[in-house]
């Protein structure tokens, strides 16, 4: 029971994230097109204030680095893996999909929850895209 209870915070934070994505209209194709055409500050405002809030929050918890987090593991600031081409090129490929479908992975999960069957189709396809990546990743430039 204790073991399962440890997962509860992630479920709650995930629910908050999903709820917010829908209410922010970040899972709306219309909003994504509006963003890529610089026709509204809305989406930029979300991303910019999210980054700023995260940055300030991270500065506040900096004194706690290497001390125990709530579940006992030492606190570390996350680091992305190495790689030169993979980040911009992978990002570009993802961006093409995001620009056309108007959904990135977080909104896909939220939109499935909202009851969109189209989002289920996109989700099904993303898994195949990920599998394709796994299949050929040793041949791709890092």
């Amino acid at each position, binding site marked *: 029971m204790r073991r399962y209870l*440890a*997962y509860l*915070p*992630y479920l709650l*934070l*995930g629910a908050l*994230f*999903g709820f917010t*994505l*829908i*209410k*922010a*209209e970040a*899972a709306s*194709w*219309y909003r994504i097109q509006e963003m890529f*055409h610089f*026709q*509204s*500050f*809305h989406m930029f405002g*979300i991303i910019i*204030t*999210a980054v*700023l*809030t*995260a*940055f300030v*929050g*991270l500065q506040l918890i900096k004194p706690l680095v290497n001390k125990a*987090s*709530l579940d006992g593991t030492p606190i*570390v600031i*996350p680091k*992305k893996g190495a790689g030169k081409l*993979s*980040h*911009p090129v*992978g*990002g570009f490929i*993802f961006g093409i999909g*995001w620009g*056309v*479908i108007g959904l*990135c992975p*977080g909104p896909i*999960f*939220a*939109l*499935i*929850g*909202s009851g969109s069957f*189209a989002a289920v189709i*996109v989700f099904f*396809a993303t898994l*195949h*895209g990920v599998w*394709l*990546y*796994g299949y050929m990743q040793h041949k791709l430039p890092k």
Partner: protein
Amino acid sequence: MEAVLQALQGPWPWYVSGPIIGMLVPLMILIGSRSFGISQNLEHLCAITQPKFIRVDFFKYDWKPSAWSLVFAAGVFIGGYLAANIFPAALPPQLSEQAQVMFNGWGMAEVTSYNPAEIFGLKLGNVILLLVGGIFIGFGTRYAGGCTSGHAITGLSTLQPQSLYAVIGIFSGGLIASHFLVPVIVGN
């Protein structure tokens, strides 16, 4: 009570939504030293579902230590359910004038729902589009090692140059798709 309900139904302005999302980064670290992000789950789901007769080594790993991440994704699903079905917004997205003119110019119907039937309506052409788009999204996020949450929000707020390059890539791809592909797609 009425006011609370109305506030929950939204839509929420950027200055409410952005800080809530950003707050998740330090919170996830405090709870269990976890990095905020969602697309890694797609990899875990491949590891879980890959059939025995397909043996791609990349997906042969123990996903159980990442169960927290799948629980987080399940939460996103629940949040999406609550937001759309229990506390539905009264109005569709209130887009800028310019955006509405643009969509009209593309031959699209008036904005009356959260997502357009021209893209999300279930007909053969759309299903193919959603499948192809989904493959790009899945392939790209894993090649890049993150999506909008992991790179743009966690990566930029922790000042990682790789995430800045990823975000530049993501935005370039999105601009090209939105300016050159989408008008052709919805026009047909």
